[in-house]
């Protein structure tokens, strides 16, 4: 804080302008490069001594187009979300949600779940922080379901690899599941199923005063955006390359109808099977989506694939182990049951419609 106020005001304003111009320049360069990706991938593919129209040629072109495209989209969106999230904090979200009625509270909570910075490693302190401040249990669950499931990495990958219609649908139904599942859990009045010590904090309700709100300048917010890009790209780049690589192989080699037979809409059991398979699998959105895209391309039904993806992201075993510290097994079972039913419903609905 002090270091920054010591700088002369005019100089400060000048460095601010350099930042603003830098962001604009970055957007312009991004736009130009993004529109050169197809020529770029064709150029790379032509360097290989392989027929462009062979399976291998297809796979190579697919790989060298999708990897840079997804990386660029991620950089842009993660940066934007990093900047937007700097206006939100768990403390502010809690203040907005405490004492909210169920229903309205669930809707607000799921929406804030997307905008509030969240990492699954702080799921437990966040859960306690919410519940102890009088945020209803069901409303807290809406937040905890939406925050990991509807995230910008999943949406960008769906948008970039499958199409915007599917991305928007995922956003809508992800929010829908978070709202409805939280509402249902709230109606069940399960506060007694928290671990004992959590209930004690709850009834005591003595949450210490929060830290003084840190004042951020616009440049600070840019920096937070850049930090978010660095952190997320470092975490997911390998998954993206692996995932798109797998996708490219499936794209080029797996016979047209094989997936349609296994994961097609006709097989009713495919949706529950996809959900059950997704639970023990733990990967982030980046790892699973390129596979999803290739499966879809080969005739797997959209509902089945989305159900699989939601299950992998929202119902992960490691997260349940973390939550075990605050929830009893019975409550975790209800959580899995309610969220799982929501995902099943989405899967069946989609297979019916599309």
């Amino acid at each position, binding site marked *: *804080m*002090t*270091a*920054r106020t010591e700088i002369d005001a005019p100089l400060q304003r000048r460095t601010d302008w350099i930042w603003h111009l830098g962001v604009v320049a970055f957007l312009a360069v991004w736009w130009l490069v993004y529109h050169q990706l197809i020529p770029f991938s064709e150029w790379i593919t032509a360097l290989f001594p392989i027929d462009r129209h062979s399976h291998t040629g297809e796979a190579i072109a697919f790989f060298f187009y999708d990897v840079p495209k997804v990386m660029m989209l991620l950089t842009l969106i993660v940066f934007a979300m990093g900047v937007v999230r700097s206006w939100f*904090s*768990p*403390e502010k979200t*809690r203040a907005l949600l405490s004492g909210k009625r169920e229903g309205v509270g669930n809707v607000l909570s799921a929406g804030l779940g997307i905008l509030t*910075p*969240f*990492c699954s*490693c*702080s799921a*437990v*302190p*966040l859960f*306690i*922080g*919410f519940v*102890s401040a009088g945020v209803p249990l069901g409303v807290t669950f809406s937040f905890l379901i939406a925050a990991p499931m509807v995230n910008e990495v999943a949406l960008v990958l769906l948008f970039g690899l499958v199409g915007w219609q599917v991305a928007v649908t995922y956003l809508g139904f992800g929010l829908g599941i978070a709202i409805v599942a939280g509402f249902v859990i709230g109606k069940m009045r399960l506060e007694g199923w928290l671990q004992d*010590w959590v209930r004690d*904090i709850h009834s005591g309700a003595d*949450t*210490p*005063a*929060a*830290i003084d709100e840190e004042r951020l300048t616009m440049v600070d917010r840019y920096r937070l955006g850049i*930090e978010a890009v660095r952190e997320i790209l470092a975490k997911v780049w390998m998954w993206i390359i692996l995932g798109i690589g797998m996708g490219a192989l499936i794209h080029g080699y797996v016979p047209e109808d094989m997936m349609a037979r296994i994961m097609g809409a006709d097989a009713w059991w495919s949706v529950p099977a996809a959900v059950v398979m997704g639970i023990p699998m733990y990967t982030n959105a980046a790892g699973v989506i390129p596979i999803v895209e290739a499966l879809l391309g080969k005739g797997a039904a959209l509902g089945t694939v989305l159900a699989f993806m939601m299950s992998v992201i929202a119902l992960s075993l490691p997260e349940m182990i*973390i939550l075990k*510290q*605050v929830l009893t097994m019975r409550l975790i079972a209800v959580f899995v049951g309610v969220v799982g039913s929501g995902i099943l419903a989405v899967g069946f609905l989609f297979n019916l419609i599309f």
Partner: protein
Amino acid sequence: MKTVKVYGPGCKRCETTESMVKDTAATLGIEISVEKISDPREIAMAGIMSTPGISVDGKLVHAGGLPDAAKLKDWLSA
């Protein structure tokens, strides 16, 4: 001597924060004792909702994400 507590369940960022605190104190020549708190109950009781969090002499100064290097200096030397 200042007592600094670093709150975090053990994610990578929490470890980085702990070593940042130690390094900064060493550079400033301030003697501190660092305590790492990973019990979720204690983290919650301290009023922290996003980790890592830092408290200096019982006063919470930071929660969520890596601390800013310049601010960290201020907290430790205040």
